[in-house]
């Protein structure tokens, strides 16, 4: 299948460079789509009296623009570069789990299309703003099914991002070539590592918000429509993800800038090791500042004050990151190339965006600024200016490496200047519109606001076409551009020095065998898409697609049993400090870290509504303690049986392995049968159902999520059993048993907390 253009090949690829290109093209498509929406909004705001967009359509446009730009364009473009260049920079053959990488991409594409489709549902799509604030997002205020579709689209994206995070963390930690120690790791790869680490810990809380909002909208629970949960609970879950998301978007761009600036300043990055430490501090602190988005809510002042301090604190290492790049330019012999111009632009925007952001850390100032256009200007300077100009620097910097061709530099420089002017014209006037309310299509025709809005819209009409022409310049160069030198920038980064010549994805597969092509990621992702549509719109579609997903999983496992994708002789060269773990085991543990946040957030939501409730039914009144205790002992016994199965195969005892796995399967089925076949019907018969209040809502949602995890674990145990019966495990080769066991024990641990919380306390 190598060589030439083939649609089938692009649909079945697992190659990191090809998937990087797919991410790039798709994210640019979403940029154009969301950019068109932005243009509509700016036109409406320039001439509000024309009524181009009525309030509902304007609300939908704002919502889709925000969601797509942040989650389907900015972040995925960074992931596109990460896909393409991280393996090249660290000397890996591919990502750690190439097929899962393909699943990530297809889920990303399908989730974006699903989001866009929400607009075409009866009653339209979401019009709540990208934050989907509750209770606005509940069926009481947004009854249209398009809202549910949009929420589930976000769920698919969260799944895609989690898989990507596990993949990249495992790759960077475990798959580095010999000599690629942490000290010499390229800064772009550091930026990606920081990004995916944040994704891993931040996205699960969004995932939980989506699960609970879907439960509210589809099943009728009341997490976000009750007084005890409501808007504040959504705010906590959303912004725990939402603020790190700002850094998730910006960090890859900072990584690109830290590659580009030293290259064209012809000096190493100033204080690289300290720069990395500061980047790490930014990453850690970014998950400790989310409450500054909630200063206007009625939560405790002490909590708000604490987060004011953490918000101020993060500016210190962040400035360190910026200053490191600025000091690299000191006394440097700078070459003004196109990538360098974009890096300069991004540097200018991150400084301006950062300075205007410091004001938001103050509770008092936030009261004045939160609802107006000052904050729109601020976050567009940070998220759009810094990120787009930073990633554009990467686009022009790596274009010759990716294609072997050179773009027209003169045109690119001219377009940079136009873009820079257009961008400032678009967003700088917003700092003077601090009293103008955002997210509304019409505003009082204040004589001071109209010219500023006109100016801003004029900027949009300059910046957007210049950006498009820049992309066309690259598209033209792809086919007609002159041949590039091997290292036209004289760059020192490993992807330039270690791999001379263009790395053209269309003709160079770089390592992985042709057997790496498979249709399973595409099929599985498409079925998951259908399942999501089913949950939102049609239970029968959900059931049929779930059955099809199980069949696809069986095919996936069949390939595993036949070891179709195993890589002979693969071993880590640089994997400090994970010497003793296989990459699969590391991947499982990284995944479990996100699972901890998922279950932790679900349990936190339960505790939150319980603390906020004046009364709560006693555990003994509702739940059968004998059944709860029995199920606890069943799960504990299943943990014993699976660890005994592992020990058996370590000792070469295949019968013991099969017996242990068989017992685990029977115990898992028994747990689910008791819960779903006996306990739940008994509770429902007593009137303890989803319309009986938050005690029932939290019980069914929390134990239901756990039951789904037990079911997933059972599927994995059945796979192990099938492979064990065929003699697929030996004394040396038993890692899959250990890895599934680690997951199974985790599910057991979760129950160790659910049992006391629901049956004893």
């Amino acid at each position, binding site marked *: 299948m190598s060589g030439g253009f083939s649609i089938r090949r692009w649909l079945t690829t697992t190659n990191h460079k090809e998937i990087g290109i797919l991410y790039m093209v798709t994210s640019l498509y979403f940029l154009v789509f969301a950019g068109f929406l932005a243009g509509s909004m700016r036109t409406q705001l320039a001439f509000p009296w024309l009524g181009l967009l009525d309030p509902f359509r304007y609300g939908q446009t704002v919502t889709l623009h925000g969601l797509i730009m942040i989650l389907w364009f900015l972040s995925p473009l960074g992931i596109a570069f990460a896909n393409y260049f991280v393996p090249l920079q660290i000397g890996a053959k591919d990502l750690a789990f190439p097929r899962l990488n393909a699943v990530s991409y297809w889920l990303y594409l399908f989730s974006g299309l699903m989001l866009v489709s929400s607009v075409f549902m009866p009653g339209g799509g979401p019009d709540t703003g990208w934050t989907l604030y509750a209770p606005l997002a509940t069926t009481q205020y947004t009854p249209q099914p398009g809202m549910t579709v949009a929420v589930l689209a976000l769920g698919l994206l969260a799944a895609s991002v989690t898989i990507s995070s596990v993949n990249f963390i495992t790759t960077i930690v475990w798959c580095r070539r010999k000599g690629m120690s942490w000290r010499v790791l390229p800064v772009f790869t550091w930026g990606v590592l920081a990004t995916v680490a944040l994704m891993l*810990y931040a996205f699960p*809380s969004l995932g939980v918000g989506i699960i609970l909002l879907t439960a509210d909208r589809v099943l009728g629970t009341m997490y976000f429509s009750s007084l005890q949960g409501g808007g*504040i*609970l959504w705010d*906590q879950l959303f912004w*725990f993800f939402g603020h790190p998301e700002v850094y998730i978007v910006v960090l890859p761009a900072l990584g690109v800038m830290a590659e580009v600036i030293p290259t064209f300043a012809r000096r190493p990055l100033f204080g690289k090791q300290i720069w990395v430490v500061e980047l790490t501090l930014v990453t850690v602190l970014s*998950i*400790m500042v989310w*409450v500054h988005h*909630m200063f206007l809510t009625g*939560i*405790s002042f*002490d*909590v708000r004050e604490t*987060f004011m301090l953490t918000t101020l604190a993060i500016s210190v290492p962040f400035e360190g990151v910026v200053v490191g790049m600025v000091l690299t330019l000191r006394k440097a012999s700078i070459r003004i190339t196109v990538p360098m111009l974009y890096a300069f632009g991004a540097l200018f925007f991150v400084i301006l965006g950062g300075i205007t952001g410091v004001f938001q850390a103050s509770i008092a100032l936030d009261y004045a600024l939160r609802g107006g256009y000052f904050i729109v200007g601020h976050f567009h300077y940070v998220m759009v200016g810094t990120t787009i100009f930073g990633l554009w620097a990467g686009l022009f910097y790596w274009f010759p490496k990716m294609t072997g061709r050179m773009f027209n530099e003169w045109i690119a420089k001219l377009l940079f200047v136009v873009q820079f002017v257009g961008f400032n014209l678009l967003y700088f006037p917003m700092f003077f519109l601090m009293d103008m309310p955002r997210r509304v299509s019409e505003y009082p025709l204040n004589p001071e606001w109209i010219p500023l809005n006109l100016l801003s819209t004029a900027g949009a009409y300059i910046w957007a076409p210049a950006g498009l022409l820049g992309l066309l310049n690259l598209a033209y160069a792809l086919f007609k551009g002159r041949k590039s030198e091997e290292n036209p920038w004289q760059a020192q980064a490993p992807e330039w020095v270690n791999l001379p010549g263009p790395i053209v994805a269309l003709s160079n597969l770089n390592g992985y065998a042709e057997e790496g092509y498979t249709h399973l990621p595409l099929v599985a992702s498409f079925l998951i898409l259908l399942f999501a549509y089913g949950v939102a719109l049609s239970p029968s579609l959900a059931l049929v697609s779930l059955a099809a997903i199980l069949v696809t999983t069986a095919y996936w496992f069949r390939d595993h049993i036949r070891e179709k994708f195993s890589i002979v002789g693969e071993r880590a060269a640089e994997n400090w*400090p*994970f*010497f*003793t*773990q296989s990459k699969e085991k*590391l991947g499982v*543990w*990284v995944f*479990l*870290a*996100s699972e*901890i*946040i998922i279950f*932790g*957030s679900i349990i*936190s939501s339960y*505790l*939150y509504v319980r*603390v*906020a409730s004046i009364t709560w039914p006693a555990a003994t009144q509702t739940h059968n*303690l004998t059944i709860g*205790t029995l199920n*606890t*002992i069943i799960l*504990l*016994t299943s*943990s*014993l049986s699976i*660890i*005994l199965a592992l*020990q058996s195969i370590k000792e070469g005892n295949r019968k013991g392995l099969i017996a242990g796995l068989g017992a685990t399967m029977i115990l898992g089925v028994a747990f689910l049968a008791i819960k779903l076949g006996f306990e739940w019907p008994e509770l429902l018969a007593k009137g303890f159902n989803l319309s009986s209040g938050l005690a029932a809502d939290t019980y069914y949602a929390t134990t239901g999520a756990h039951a789904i995890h037990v079911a997933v674990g059972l599927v994995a145990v059945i796979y192990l059993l099938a492979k064990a019966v065929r003699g697929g495990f030996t004394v040396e080769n038993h890692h899959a048993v*250990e890895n599934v*066991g*680690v997951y199974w*024990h*985790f599910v*057991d*641990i979760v129950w*160790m*907390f659910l*049992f*006391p919380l629901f049956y*004893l*306390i």
Partner: protein
Amino acid sequence: MKEKGFYVAVWGILVLATILEVATRSIQAAAIVVAFGIIIISITKAVLIASIYQHLWYEGKILSLLPAVALIALTLLLLTAILGVM
């Protein structure tokens, strides 16, 4: 066989801890004290499973960092959410 016996012993401790957990519920003390006692037993059980059955005890401390960071982040979220409404 030595390891298998050890795993069975751990299982025995976990079952006993579960019984102790249920029994703690009947102690005549303030509800908050009883709840605290039960949660401590639950945490002990979870640590035992993670350390012995998931092999975290033998894997080296660095692997524990992954769940530890998640737990720290989670504690921050939970404390902020609860303290925010108190």
